[in-house]
C-alpha cells in the first residue's frame, strides 16, 4: 500500500463494503457476538483473580463476604465465553459463506457480457484462473480482515475504559501497548517483509513453472542427458525459495517474540505501577489482581490484527483487479427482433476486432441459403473462426450501427468505420437488430475451443438442451458413435467428466461436442473442424450421420473443414485466405484450382 494509492484503496474498500450491504445485519451480529465473547473471556480471568483474592482476604481477616455473586458471575462468564465462541463461529462463518455466494454470483453476472468480447485480454487460462483466485481471496475479507478490525476497534476502548475505572495511568499505558501490538508492530513487519514477499511469490511461480515445464518435457531432458542438471536446478530454486521463506518466518517469529515481550512486560509494569496507589489505598488489593490478570489477557482483543493487516492489502488488490475487469465497457446489445427463417447474407462485409487495428475479414460476400450445406476452408489465420463467431453475435458488426453498439471510447475512432463496414443479414434483418438469445436459438455452433464441464455426461449434454429426455440423449450419442462407450461405463450417462472425473480422449470429447450440437434445435448448425482427432471409421460414419440429420431436420449446415470426404457432399465451398474469400463453388468446380489442391494436401 503505497501512499499514492491510499485514496484509491479506500475507494475499493468502501465499494467492497457496499457490495456486502445485504449481508451486513448478519455480519454485524457476528461482530457483536465476537466482541461479547472476547470481553467475557477477558473478564473471566479478571473476576476469578478478584474472587480468590477476596476469599483470601476474607479468610485471613475473618470477615464474612458475599461469595455467591462472584461465584455466579464466574460461572456465567464461563458459559458466555464458551457458548458465545460457538455461536459466534457459526454465525460469522455463515455470514462469510453467504457473502461469498453473493459476491461470486455478482462478479459472474458482471463478467457474463464481457466474454468473449474482450477475447484478447481475457483469453489466457491463467488469467481466468487468477480471476477465480481473486474471487476466492475475498473469502478472507469478512472473517479475517473486517471482523478482527471491528472487534479491535470496539473492544479496545471498552477494555481501556474498564481499566480507567481503576487507574487512568494504566488505561493510557494499555491503550499504547494495544496500539503497538495491534497496529504498529504488524505494520512494521508488513513493510519489512514487502520485498521478501514479492521475491517469495516470484520464486514460487518460478518453481511451479520449472516443475510443470520439466515434468512436461521429461523426454527431452532425459534424451539430452540433462535430467541430473535439471534436478540440481530444481534443488537450487527450492533452496532459494525456502531461504526467502525462512527469512519471512524469522520476521514473523520476531513479531511474535516482541509481542510476547510487550504483553508480559506490560502486565508486570501495570503491577508495579499499581503498587504506590495500593499503599495509599487508592486501589484495593482485589482490584490489583483483577487489573493485572485483565491486562495479561486483554491482548486477545488485537490478537488477529497482524493477520488482518497482512491480508487487507491482498483482499483489496484482488477486489481492485476484479473491479477493473467488470468496469470495462460492455457491448450493449440493443437487438430486440426475433429471428425469421431465411438466408444468411454477408454483403461487402469488413470486420476488425475492437482491440485490433487490421481487419480480420475483408469485403466478404457470401450467402448461406436455407437448407444449404456450405464448407469453409483456408489456412489457419484466414478468418474462418471469426466468420463463425460473428454469426453467434459475440461482436457487433457493421459501421451503420457502430455508434450505438460499440462502447463510447472506441466508436469515435475514424478508422473504425473503414475497418467495419457492410452487413450481415438473416432473412433480410440486420444481425445487430436481432435479440442475442433468439439468434443463438436460431444458429448453433460447435467451436474448436469447446469446453467440457466438470459434470456428468448427461449434464454436459443437457447444457445444449436443458429439457432433453433420456431418449434424446441416447439418440444423439448413437449418431456420434458414443453410445457403446457410455453404456460400457459403470455409471453410464451419470459418469463424471473433467479433471476430477473420467478423462475422455480427444476424439471422444469431439464426438460429445458434436452430440451437443445435434441436440440444439437450431435452423443453422455450424461445425468448426468436426472430425479433428477422429479415426477414419468414425469420421465417415459420423459425417454421414450429421448430413442425414440436417437433411431430416431441414437445417442449414456450415462446416469448417479440409476433409475431402466432406467437401464432395457440400453444396458450396468457400476458400478463404487472409480474411478474404478468394474463390467459391462446389468441389468439382474447384478441383481444377491449384491453390485448392494445395490446401487439401497441406493438412
Amino acid at each position, binding site marked *: 500500500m503505497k501512499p499514492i494509492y491510499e485514496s484509491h484503496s479506500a475507494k475499493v474498500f468502501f465499494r467492497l463494503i457496499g457490495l456486502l450491504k445485504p449481508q451486513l445485519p448478519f455480519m454485524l451480529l457476528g461482530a457483536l457476538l465476537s466482541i461479547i465473547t472476547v470481553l467475557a473471556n477477558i473478564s473471566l480471568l479478571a473476576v476469578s483473580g478478584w474472587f480468590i483474592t477476596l476469599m*483470601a482476604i476474607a479468610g485471613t481477616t475473618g470477615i464474612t463476604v458475599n461469595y455467591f455473586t462472584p461465584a455466579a458471575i464466574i460461572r456465567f462468564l464461563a458459559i458466555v465465553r464458551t457458548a458465545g465462541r460457538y455461536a459466534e463461529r457459526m454465525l460469522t462463518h*455463515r455470514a462469510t459463506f453467504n457473502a461469498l455466494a453473493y459476491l*461470486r454470483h455478482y462478479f459472474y453476472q458482471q463478467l457474463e457480457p464481457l466474454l468473449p468480447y474482450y477475447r484478447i485480454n481475457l483469453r489466457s487460462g491463467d488469467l481466468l484462473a487468477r*480471476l477465480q483466485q481473486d474471487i476466492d481471496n475475498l473469502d478472507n475479507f469478512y472473517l479475517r480482515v473486517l471482523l478482527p478490525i471491528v472487534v479491535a476497534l470496539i473492544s479496545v476502548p471498552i477494555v481501556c475504559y474498564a481499566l480507567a475505572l481503576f487507574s487512568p495511568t494504566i488505561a493510557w499505558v494499555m491503550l499504547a501497548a494495544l496500539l503497538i501490538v495491534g497496529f504498529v508492530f504488524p505494520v512494521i513487519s508488513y513493510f519489512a517483509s514487502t520485498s521478501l514477499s514479492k521475491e517469495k511469490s516470484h520464486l514460487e511461480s518460478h518453481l511451479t513453472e520449472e516443475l510443470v515445464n520439466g515434468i512436461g518435457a*521429461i523426454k527431452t531432458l532425459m534424451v539430452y542427458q540433462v*535430467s541430473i542438471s535439471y534436478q540440481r536446478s530444481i534443488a537450487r530454486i527450492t533452496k532459494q525459495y525456502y531461504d526467502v521463506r525462512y527469512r519471512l518466518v524469522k520476521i514473523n517469529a520476531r513479531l511474535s517474540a516482541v509481542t*510476547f515481550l510487550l504483553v508480559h512486560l506490560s502486565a508486570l509494569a501495570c*503491577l508495579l505501577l499499581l503498587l504506590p496507589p495500593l499503599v495509599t489505598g487508592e486501589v484495593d488489593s482485589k482490584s490489583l489482581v483483577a487489573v493485572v490478570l485483565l491486562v495479561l489477557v486483554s491482548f486477545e482483543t488485537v490478537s488477529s490484527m497482524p493477520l488482518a493487516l497482512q491480508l487487507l492489502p491482498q483482499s483489496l488488490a484482488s477486489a481492485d483487479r476484479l473491479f477493473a475487469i467488470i468496469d470495462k465497457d460492455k457491448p450493449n446489445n440493443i437487438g430486440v427482433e426475433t429471428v425469421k427463417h431465411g438466408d444468411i447474407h454477408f454483403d461487402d462485409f469488413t470486420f476488425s476486432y475492437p482491440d485490433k487495428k487490421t481487419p480480420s475479414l475483408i469485403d466478404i460476400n457470401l450467402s448461406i441459403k436455407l437448407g444449404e450445406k456450405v464448407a469453409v476452408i483456408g489456412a489457419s489465420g484466414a478468418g474462418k473462426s471469426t466468420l463463425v463467431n460473428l454469426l453467434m453475435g459475440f461482436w457487433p458488426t457493421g459501421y451503420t450501427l457502430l455508434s450505438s453498439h460499440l462502447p463510447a471510447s472506441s466508436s469515435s475512432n475514424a478508422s473504425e468505420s473503414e475497418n467495419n463496414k457492410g452487413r450481415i443479414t438473416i432473412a433480410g434483418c440486420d444481425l445487430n437488430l436481432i435479440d442475442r438469445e433468439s439468434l*443463438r436459438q436460431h444458429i448453433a455452433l460447435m467451436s474448436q475451443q469447446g469446453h467440457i464441464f466438470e459434470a456428468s455426461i448427461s449434464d454436459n449434454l443437457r447444457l445444449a438442451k436443458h429439457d432433453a429426455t433420456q431418449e434424446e440423449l441416447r439418440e444423439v450419442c448413437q449418431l456420434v458413435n458414443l453410445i457403446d462407450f457410455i453404456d460400457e461405463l459403470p455409471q453410464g450417462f451419470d459418469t463424471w467428466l473433467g479433471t476430477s472425473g473420467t478423462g475422455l480422449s480427444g476424439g471422444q470429447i469431439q464426438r460429445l461436442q458434436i452430440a451437443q450440437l445435434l441436440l440444439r434445435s437450431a435452423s443453422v448448425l455450424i461445425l468448426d473442424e468436426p472430425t479433428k482427432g477422429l479415426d477414419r471409421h468414425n469420421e465417415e460414419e459420423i459425417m454421414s450421420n450429421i448430413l442425414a440429420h440436417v437433411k431430416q431436420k431441414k437445417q442449414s449446415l456450415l462446416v469448417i473443414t479440409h476433409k475431402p470426404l466432406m467437401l464432395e457432399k457440400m453444396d458450396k465451398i468457400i476458400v478463404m485466405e487472409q480474411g478474404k474469400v478468394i474463390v467459391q463453388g462446389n468441389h468439382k468446380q474447384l478441383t481444377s484450382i491449384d491453390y485448392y489442391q494445395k490446401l487439401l494436401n497441406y493438412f
Partner: protein
Amino acid sequence: MTKKTEHQKKQVNRWLKYQKKYAQGKLSRAIALGSINGILMILQTAMLAYLIDLAIFPNVEASLNKAQSNGAITDSAAFTDITTISLALVAIIFCRAALGYFSECYSRRGAMDIKTNIRSRLLNRLFQFGPAYTETKGSAKLSHLLHQGIDSLEDYFAGYLPVIAYCAVIPLAILIAVFPIDWQSGLILLVTAPMVPFFMILIGHKAQRLNQEHWAKLQRMSSHFLDIIQGLTQLKIFNASRREIAAVKRISDDYGDETMGILKIAFLSSFVLEFLASISIALVAVILGFRLYYGDVDYVFALWVLLLAPEFYLPFRQLGTQYHAKMAGVSAAEDLVEILNQPQVNYSLEETFTAPFSISVSQAEFAYPDRSNTLSQVNLEFSTQGLYAVIGESGSGKSTLIDMVLGFVQPDSGHVVANGQPLTSANRDHWLKHCGWISQQAQLFYGSLAFNVALSDNYQDELVIEALERAGLANFVQTLEQDIETEIGENGAGLSGGQAQRLALARVFYHQPDVLILDEPTSHLDQQTEQMITASINAYAENHIVIVIAHRLHTVIDAKKIIVLEQGKVIESGTHQELLTHDGYYAQQVNL
C-alpha cells in the same frame, strides 16, 4: 472403511514419522526449546503469583500492624524482594521470548529441510521411471504434487508434530509442579485432562468420516466455479449462461451449507474442549476460593494454580487447530508414499553402445494397464542411416513405438534390440546418449537461447552459433540485442511456434545424435517453415538414423521406408512408390 485402507493409513503415518530424520535434529531441537519454554512458563506464573502475593499481603499485615513500629522495616524488605523478583521475572520473559523465537525458527527450518529432501527424492524417482510413468500419472498432477503437495507437509511437521509433543510434556510438567504443593487442585486437573483427548477422538472420528464423505463433493463444487468462467463462451453459445450463473448462486449456497456441515463438527469439538476447560478453570477457581476462605491453602499457591489452569489446556486446544494440518499432510503423503514406495531401478554401469547403430523390434507386444493392446506383433528394422517415417491415425500406437525405441517403454513380450543388446530401463540412459528428440511443440526452458540449444551452462559459443545457423535462426539471432545470451523467458515467450521448433532443431545439430526421433515436428507450422525444417531433417538423415512420426504425407515422400500403423499393427511398409503400388491405406490417403 476397509482393512486395506486402514493398513495404508498406518503405512502413511509411519512414513511421515520416518521423515523426521531428514530435519537433522532441528525438529527435536525445536520441540526441546518449546518444552523448556513451557517449563519456564510454570516458573513465570509462580513468580508472578509470588509477586502479587508480596504486593498484597505485606500491605494487609502493614495495615493490621500500623501501630507497631517495625511496619516500615517490613515494607522496605518487601520492596527489595519485589525488585529482585521483578528483575528475575523480566529475565524469564526475555528468555521465553527468545525460546519461542528459536523454537519457531528451528521447526520451520526443519520442516523445510524435510520438504527439500522429499522433493529431490521424488523428482529423482520420477526420472528413474521416465515419461511412460509421468504421462500415465499426468504431468500436471505430478508437478502439483511436487510443489504444493509437498509444501502442504510443512504444517504437519512444523505445527502438528511439535504440538503433539507439547501435549505430552507441558500438562505433565504442570501436574508434577502442582501435585506436591496442592494435591487437590492437581487432582481436578488430572481428572479433567483425559476427558479432553477422549472427546476429541470421539468427535474427530466423526469429523473425519464426514470430511471424507464431503471432500469429493466440495472439490467438485469448487472446480465448478472455475469451470463456469472457463466455459462461459460455451454456455453463451448454448444460451445457457444466465441459467448457469443463476445456478452459481445456488451452488455457492450449497457449498456454504456443506462446508458449514463440516465446520459445525469442528466447532462443536472445540466447543466441548473449551467448555471442559472453562468448567475446569471455574471449578479450580471456586474450590480454591473456598479453601482460601477456610485458610486451607496459601494465597500464593492458589493464584499460581489459577494462572496455570488455562495453560494446562492450551496444548490440547492447539491440537484441535492443528487437526487440519494433519489431515492435509496425510492426504498429500498418501500420494507421495505411492510413488516413493515403487521399486527402485538398478542401473547397469558398463554397457555402452557404439556406432554404427541398428535397432530391431521383433514380435513386440505392448498394452497400457486397463487398455486393449497398443502394439501387437510389431517387427521393424532401423539401420545405419536414412529417414524412416511412421504414419497412422491418432491412437494407432505411433508414440508408443517411439517410446519403445527410446527405451522408455519395454515391450510386454518380444524384444527391442540396439546393436545386439536388448533395451531395458537399466541401460536406458546409456542408450539415450546416442539419441535425439524433437516433440510436436518444442519444449523450451527458462534460460538463455544458448542454454536452450546446449541444455547446459557450459557451452561453446561457436558450436551454438553454428547450430543456430544450420537451423535457419541466424538472422533472427542477429536481431536480438543480447545475441545468444538473450533470455527466452517463461514458456518461450518472444519466440513464434516456428522459431521454437527451429531452436529444437538447433539443439539436434549441436548434440549430433546418431539416432534422431521426431514426433510430428511440423504439425503446427506454416508451409514455409515446414519446408525448411523438412529439408534440414532430410539432410540430417543422410548420415544418421532419423525416425519421424509424420502427419502431413507430403513431408515423407522421400523416406527410405514409410511404416503405416493401424490399431497397433504394422499394416504396410515400404517406400512411397512401393506403397502406391501396394494400393493400401497409404495410397488411399495420398489419392484423396
